[in-house]
């Protein structure tokens, strides 16, 4: 049997080659830190092609549970990055939204579809891009489309993940103002505009499709929030 990784050679050559590979493996196995090629060379016969041995091993461990990688010019076995989950108990970290983020989420939930400028208008303060990013990253809000107004601002709405997290079957399960008053969540006598009718996922008459990627800075580029951010 011939080893396809080894160039044509005598049986002795192949044996020596295998042995050299094994030495490199063993030394790297026992190393706590990445190993310099020179250190490996010192363990091998003088005629060994360390570079080739490392390349061959590196290829061999590709796609296995741990890889032979080159870090900072040295060599080390490292567990495959996608195996991290299996290596130790994943810690659970409990997190809560900030007050501002929760308020923004609530406004989006009750007033969707809503643009950033509209949220700012409703809240009376600027909405930092970070707040929307947090909510987008949690997957609780999404960009629905664009408002059919000059500047075509992006409209936001809640997602299915939002419903799932808050245990809602549909947006219409969100309690109305009267329910909130009855539950003491809204002060008696507090009035204001009636809640808008909540839309489904289909775009409303005032929206149009996103069509094309949203510039990362787009949510940031309305002059109003720029001014407010500067003033903060």
């Amino acid at each position, binding site marked *: 049997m011939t080893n396809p990784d080894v160039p044509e050679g005598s049986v002795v050559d192949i044996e020596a080659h295998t042995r050299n590979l094994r030495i490199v493996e063993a030394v790297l196995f026992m190393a706590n830190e990445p190993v310099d090629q020179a250190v490996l060379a010192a363990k091998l016969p003088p005629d060994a092609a360390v570079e080739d041995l490392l390349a061959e091993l590196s290829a061999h461990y590709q796609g296995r549970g741990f890889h032979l990688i080159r870090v900072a010019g040295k060599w080390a076995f490292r567990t495959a990055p996608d195996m991290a989950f299996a290596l130790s108990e994943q810690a*659970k970290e409990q997190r809560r*939204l900030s007050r501002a983020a929760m*308020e923004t989420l609530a*406004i989006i939930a009750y007033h969707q579809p809503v643009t950033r400028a509209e949220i700012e208008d409703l809240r009376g303060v600027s909405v930092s891009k970070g707040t929307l990013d947090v909510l987008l990253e949690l997957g609780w809000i999404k960009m629905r489309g664009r408002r059919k107004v000059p500047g075509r601002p992006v409209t936001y709405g809640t997602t299915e993940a939002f419903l799932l997290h808050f245990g809602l079957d549909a947006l219409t399960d969100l309690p109305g103002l009267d329910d909130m008053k009855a539950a003491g969540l809204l002060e008696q006598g507090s009035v204001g505009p009636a809640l808008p009718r909540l839309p489904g996922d289909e775009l409303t008459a005032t929206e149009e499709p996103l069509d094309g990627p949203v510039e990362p800075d787009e949510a940031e580029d309305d002059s109003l929030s720029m001014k407010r951010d500067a003033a903060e």
Partner: protein
Amino acid sequence: MNAAVPEPGFDTQERQEDSGLIVDVDGFEGPLDLLLTLARNQKVDLRTISILALVEQYLAFINAARQMQLDLAADYLVMAAWLAYLKSRLLLPEPPGGPEPSAEDMAARLTLQLQRLELIRGAADRLGALGKLGVNFFFRPEHESPKPEPVIVQTDTLYDLLRAYGAYRGKRNPPRLSLVKARVFAIEDARHRLERMLGLLIDWNRLDAILPVLAPEPGVRRSAIASMLTASLEMARDGDLEIEQGGAFAPVFIRKRLIPRGEPAEQGEAIP
């Protein structure tokens, strides 16, 4: 024990050399080792052991052993005594029916013991010949596992969401204070009514029978009673009215004061 004495249980270079000097190239250590070797040399048949040779070798060994480790020498002395006893038992005629095991039994036991010891020595050798951790093979050195990113659990509840929205609505649309005008029958109205009715109040009248016609709310009736009573008291003070009440919580009666002002009111007149 002083520091110069080698730690028990471990071979040190020095001690190995010492034992090499004393014992034999094979490096045996225990008295049975020695006996085993001696017995083997004598073809195991202890009957044919030369006591003299045995004792000589023992003495030579013990002399040397004593210089390095008393503990070791003591073991050998016990063994030597036991061997000498066994040898004498083998050579002397058996005591009739004694409780002691026969010399043959003892020899057989010794032989068995020697066999067992040989096996144990073999086992120890084989155990020692096994590859050893940290010498022949290694586990990976201690290393730290990469910590996976923690799973983030959002603890926000629907209640938090609704409270946030409620707080927002309350903040943006603060409740307006509107004072609802209280529906009451004022004292001035009551006095005015009494003054107008004064001519009709020649006889005793129950106060609650002359209340005005009012809105059906109970609060209004209460306020009318209170105002009428207060107004009657005022008018009584002014000398325009007389007030009578039979007892606590009894109906209150009023009538126009017949006696002119300034004169004392009639006393003791019966209430109808």
